[in-house]
């Protein structure tokens, strides 16, 4: 465990080197968030009574999503890991005295954390300076803030556990391109990355909410703004723990079965 944690810290520091790319990302993310808020504003003006959440809650949702995009999106992978399976260098990884799952989990989480550290601070500052109805609002209450942090951690882990499943399917299919192309846009929609789930028709929103993807971006972003509170919030946190367990179990099993039949070619 200690080894994994050190490895995690090392990879975070490694990731923190790429600063220029982060600045470019910040500008783009700010622009996207701004445009999206304008769009929802137009819809809000069209018929405020059909707006499924408070407007302030939506604005916070969008700014937080933009700031935490690198941590919560469904499409950040460590692409090196896919190539490792393909070119056989996964064999080196297997020589190490820590589990493959643990190492890769730490590595992917570190990549996301380092990216988000570089990007979120400027976005948080700018978004909270934007005047009242447009800016990032304070969390609903201290409890919501605490649960938001907890839920954010869980959501990040569920996201990484999902990536782990995709890494390990490589043991079976060699190229994961096909699965990624088809799964990722779907995951993006289901996790509330594209559109906050309450804006969908109720029956669909319910399915998405209880799917594993509902435990990703959807959970922390809605807890922060008080859209999920009380019983619903506790339920959400339990759901996140549940899905983290299931995803980790699937990933772990895929790894073990894959390793049993893995065949590394070449020398």
């Amino acid at each position, binding site marked *: 465990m200690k080894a994994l944690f050190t490895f995690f810290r090392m990879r975070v520091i490694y990731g923190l080197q790429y600063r220029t790319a982060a600045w*470019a990302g910040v500008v783009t993310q700010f622009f996207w968030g701004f445009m999206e808020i*304008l769009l929802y504003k137009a819809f809000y003006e*069209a*018929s405020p009574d059909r707006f499924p959440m408070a407007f302030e809650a939506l604005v916070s949702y969008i700014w937080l999503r933009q700031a935490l995009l690198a941590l919560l999106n469904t499409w950040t992978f460590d692409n090196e890991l896919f190539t490792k399976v393909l070119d056989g260098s996964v064999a080196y990884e297997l020589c190490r005295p820590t589990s493959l799952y643990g190492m890769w989990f730490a590595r992917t989480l570190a990549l996301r954390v380092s990216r988000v550290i570089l990007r979120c601070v400027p976005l948080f500052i700018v978004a909270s300076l934007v005047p009242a109805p447009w800016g990032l609002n304070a969390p609903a209450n201290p409890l919501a803030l605490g649960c938001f942090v907890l839920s954010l951690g869980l959501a990040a882990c569920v996201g990484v556990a999902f990536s782990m499943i995709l890494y390990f399917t490589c043991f079976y299919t060699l190229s994961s391109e*096909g699965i*990624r*192309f*088809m799964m990722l*846009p779907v995951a993006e*929609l289901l996790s509330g990355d594209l559109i906050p789930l309450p804006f969908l028709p109720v029956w669909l929103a319910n399915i998405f909410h209880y799917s594993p993807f509902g435990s990703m971006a959807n959970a922390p972003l809605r807890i922060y703004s008080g859209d999920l509170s009380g019983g619903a919030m506790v339920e959400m946190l339990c759901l996140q723990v549940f899905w983290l367990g299931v995803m980790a179990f699937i990933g772990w099993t895929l790894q073990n079965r894959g390793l049993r039949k893995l065949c590394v070619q070449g020398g």
Partner: protein
Amino acid sequence: MKLYFKFFAMHLKSRMAYKKSFFFAVIGQFITTFTAFLTLYFLLDRFGSVKGYTMGECLLSASIMWISFPLAEWFFRGFDTFPGMIRHAEFDRVLVRPRSLIFQVMCQKLEFTRIGRLAQGVVTLAMGIAASGVEWTALRCLCLGLMILGGVCVFSALFLIYAALSFFTLEGLEFMNCFTDGAREHFAYPLEIYGEGFVKFGTYIIPYALFQYYPLQFLLGRAGAGFAFLPLLAPLFFIPAYALWRLGVRKYKSAGS
């Protein structure tokens, strides 16, 4: 032109060597745009209309973006990888050949997988036509064609600017995505939704409104026939784009090796 077709066939053949991967990529492209479509659909389904635009009208407006963008990407994708060409000094090779520079960069890469996106755009257009209740006259059909062509011109010119800027920065500029991918996503709705300022921006700075917002008013019967021909002005955007490109080429110094 004959040479271009040769390149076209060559790229097609090389892509078809990996049929499965191509197939998945096309489907992936389709799904990606399909989620954007669903977002628009659900929002309008919930709210009924936005700033006086109904679902059908928004679908029509979105389809213009979603058809012209992948078309521009399909043929001008070479400019997307252009910063790499400069960094690796591959541009030197282009300079010594007796063909136009832009033509050669265009031939570098053709993105056939965009057909998945294009298909989604066509579906959206069909739904928009069915739901918007526009009375189709010959002039309106012509106008629709001009809108798509105008869109292809504007996006192609934006790709050209992206490439031209990399002469100065040596690196791709991510913020340009706001004007290309960002426009595809956000300006799918009629520009007016975002306010007066954006309509002005779309008229005088980057002419999105010329091929989408104004002619749309004509299609919906809210403006005179004069608006139908505004997309013809959109290609003028090539002039500043080309000027910037020339400036970049003149300034170009090889990165060596």
